[in-house]
C-alpha cells in the first residue's frame, strides 16, 4: 500500500531528474548527429548542446532555463492500493511541483493567461497537466515531462481537418507545412522530435501528437508497417530541407518522427502536430505497491498497447 509522502517523494525525484538529466537515447542522438553533420556550424551547435547537457547533469542544474509546463503521464496499475484512494495521487503531484519549484529545479514559468499573474509555484488551474492510463500491474509509472515554450507554442498552425477529397496527400502536406513553420529560424529549438496525431476528436488527436512527441524513444518505429513507413518518409523529407540544428543550416532538423492514430469519423480526419525540443526532457519512475521506487530509462506508455483509452 502506498501513501502520500512516498508518492510525493518519488514524483519530486522524477520532476527534478526530468529538468536536469537528458535521457540516454537523446544523448545518443546528439552524438550520432555530430558524426553525420557536415557543416562546422551545425557541429558547433550540437557539440555545445552536449557540453551543456553533461555539465547540467554533473552539477544538478536545469539543462534549460525554460523548465516549461510540468506534465505528468501516469500509468495506474490496477493492483496498487493507495492509502486515501486515487485522489491522493493528484494531491501528491501538485505538492511535488510546488516543492520542485521552491527548490529551484523548476523555474517560475506558469502564469494566469488573462492577468499574467503567477502563483509563484507553477501550480494553477489544470496545471500540472496530468494524463492517466489504467492498466494491469502492481505499480504506478510516472513520466515527468518538463516542456519548454518554444517547442509547444511556435508551430504556426498545429491542427487542421483533412477531408476525403484531400486524401493522404492532404495529410502529408499539412504535416510538412506545419513542421516547417516551427523549425525555421530555430523557433522550436531543432533538432526536434515531431509528434503527429491522426484521427480521433480534435482533443484526442492533439493528445496523441503530444504523447508521440514526448513519450516514444528516439529511433522507435510504430508497430504497424504502414505507419512506420509514413514516419520514415516524413523524417527523411524534413531532414533533407537543409534546416539543421537551431534552424541555422545543416542536415538534422528532427531527431525523429512519431505518429499515433485513432479511429475517426467517416466525415473527416483531424491532424495534429506537436514538437519536443532538442533537449527532450523526460524522466520515468515506477512506484511499486510494496513501496519500492525504481528509476526507469524509458517510459512504457505504449507497451500496454494502443487499443484502450490512451
Amino acid at each position, binding site marked *: 500500500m502506498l501513501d502520500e509522502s512516498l508518492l510525493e517523494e518519488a514524483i519530486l525525484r522524477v520532476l527534478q531528474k526530468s529538468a536536469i538529466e537528458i535521457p540516454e537515447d537523446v544523448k545518443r542522438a546528439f552524438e550520432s548527429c555530430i558524426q553525420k553533420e557536415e557543416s*562546422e*556550424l551545425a557541429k*558547433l*551547435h*550540437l*557539440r*555545445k*548542446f552536449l*557540453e*551543456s547537457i553533461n*555539465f*547540467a547533469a554533473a*552539477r544538478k*542544474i*536545469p*539543462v*534549460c*532555463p*525554460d523548465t516549461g509546463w510540468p506534465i505528468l503521464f501516469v500509468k495506474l496499475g490496477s493492483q496498487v492500493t493507495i492509502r486515501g484512494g486515487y485522489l491522493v495521487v493528484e494531491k501528491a503531484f501538485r505538492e511535488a511541483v510546488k516543492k520542485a519549484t521552491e527548490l*529551484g529545479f523548476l*523555474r*517560475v514559468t506558469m502564469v494566469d493567461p488573462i492577468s499574467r499573474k*503567477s502563483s509563484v509555484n507553477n501550480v494553477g488551474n489544470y496545471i500540472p497537466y496530468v494524463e492517466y492510463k489504467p492498466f494491469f500491474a502492481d505499480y504506478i509509472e510516472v513520466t515527468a515531462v518538463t516542456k519548454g*515554450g*518554444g517547442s509547444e507554442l*511556435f508551430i504556426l498552425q498545429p491542427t*487542421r481537418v*483533412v*477531408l476525403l*477529397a*484531400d486524401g493522404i*496527400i*492532404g495529410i*502529408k*502536406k499539412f504535416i*510538412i507545412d506545419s513542421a*516547417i513553420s516551427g523549425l*525555421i*529560424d*530555430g*523557433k522550436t*529549438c531543432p533538432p526536434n522530435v515531431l509528434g503527429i496525431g491522426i484521427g480521433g476528436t480534435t482533443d484526442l488527436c492533439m493528445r496523441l501528437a503530444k504523447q508521440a512527441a514526448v513519450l516514444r524513444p528516439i529511433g522507435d518505429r510504430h508497430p504497424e508497417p504502414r505507419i512506420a513507413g509514413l514516419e520514415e*518518409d516524413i523524417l527523411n*523529407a*524534413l531532414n*533533407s*530541407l*537543409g*534546416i*539543421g*540544428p*537551431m*534552424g*541555422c*543550416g545543416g542536415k538534422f532538423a528532427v531527431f525523429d518522427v512519431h505518429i499515433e492514430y485513432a479511429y475517426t469519423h467517416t466525415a473527416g480526419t483531424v491532424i495534429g502536430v506537436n514538437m519536443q*525540443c*532538442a*533537449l527532450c526532457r523526460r524522466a520515468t519512475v515506477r512506484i511499486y505497491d510494496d513501496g519500492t521506487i525504481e528509476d526507469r530509462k524509458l517510459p512504457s506508455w505504449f507497451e500496454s498497447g494502443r487499443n484502450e483509452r490512451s
Partner: protein
Amino acid sequence: MKEVKLTTPVSLEDVQELELGDVVYLNGLVFTCRGLFQKKIVEEGLPPPIDTHKINVMIHMGPVVRKIDQKFVIVSMAPTTSNRYEKWGSKIIRKLGIKVIVGKGTMGSATAKAMKKFGCVHLTSVGILGPILPLSAKVREVHWYELGPLEAVWVLEVKDLGPFLVDIDTEGNSYFKKVNEIVKIKRGEIYKKLGILENFKYQSL
C-alpha cells in the same frame, strides 16, 4: 567560421565589421530584458534604469537566479525567442542606442531596417546553453526587480560570453533568410517526392 570578441561599449565600427555567420563572444557589461521592459520603454515612455549608450548590448533573456549569502547568483540562463519582441525592436534600437541585440532565432524586417539605419546587429543562440552560459557572467546590478526575476533588468559583467552567431548585420541582411531560401527550394523537391502536386488545394467547407 570567423570568431570575434566584442567589448562594451561596442562601437559602430565594431558592429559594422561583423559579417553574417561570424561567431561572437561578449565582454564587459551587458543587460538582460524581456517583453515588459520593452513595453514600458516604448509604450509607456519610461526612461531606462541604466545608461544604454554605455551598456549597449541587450540580451533577450530571463535568467534563473538564486540568492546566496545576500548575493545574486545565476544558475541558468539562455537567450529567449527574439521574434516575440518584433513590435518594439526598431523603437528600442532608436531610443536606447543599442548596438547588439542577442536572442534566440531572429527578428523581423522592421527591426532589420532599424539595424541598418542606426548600426546594430542581432546575434542568435548557438545551442541552448542554460547551465554553461552563467560560468561567463557575474551579476553587477538588478533594476525593476518588481517586475519579477524573469522580467527584471539584470546588468551582467561577462567574460567571453558565447558563442553567438551574427544573424542580422548592419546592412539589415539576414542569415536565416538565406537558409530559408534554400529550404523553400528544397520544399518543392520534397513535395514532389511525397506526391504533393504544386497546385494542390484543400477542399474548402
